[in-house]
């Protein structure tokens, strides 16, 4: 059973489109995250939810909007996609807010053309 699953794995889309990435975890963790990995492999946090409540919102354009319908799901919607949004987006979860080990999904490679 996959612990943290993201869909889709690959996403190729044109500039200006709106797209969503879905994430689900079956670990019973309270906290979920979205991270962005750039072309140099640097991982940077975007958002974090704890039990459906937004607790971290880094400096991310308003075009990015996370939604957590329940503590097992955290989706990411992106409006008006730009070339610079091309990256690998990772969902992760952890058992609380004390930065214990994360369990990552396998990533969504977004390419904006």
């Amino acid at each position: 059973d996959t612990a943290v699953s993201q869909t889709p794995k690959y996403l190729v889309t044109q500039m200006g489109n709106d797209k969503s990435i879905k994430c689900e975890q079956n670990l019973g963790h309270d906290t979920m995250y979205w991270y962005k990995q750039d072309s140099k492999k640097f991982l940077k946090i975007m958002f974090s939810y704890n039990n459906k409540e937004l607790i971290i919102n880094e400096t991310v354009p308003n075009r990015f909007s996370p939604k957590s319908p329940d503590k097992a799901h955290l989706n990411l919607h992106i409006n008006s996609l730009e070339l610079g949004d091309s990256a690998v987006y990772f969902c992760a979860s952890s058992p609380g807010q004390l930065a214990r080990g994360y369990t990552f999904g396998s990533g969504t490679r977004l390419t904006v053309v």
Partner: protein
Amino acid sequence: TQLLEQSPQFLSIQEGENLTVYCNSSSVFSSLQWYRQEPGEGPVLLVTVVTGGEVKKLKRLTFQFGDARKDSSLHITAAQPGDTGLYLCAGPSGNTGKLIFGQGTTLQVKP
């Protein structure tokens, strides 16, 4: 601002060689974690070190947390092609669960 700097950024070695990867900061961390990421996959947690001076071993991998809790190292003995991947160190920032990551060390082990 807390930063983690890893060195080297790239390492290409022959099977059987030993290597050490470093993770340094000017800030004190309550703990540090090491992850390995393979192409097309997400990072996988290898270890968490919590106590200054702590040494943890995972088969051929040895992890050390500096006495002052500002740095950590990962030593691999007799590297194998299966060790190839991106190694990331990470540490907590604040009390919200946020992890900050180093820029990673790409390791290639040639047979």
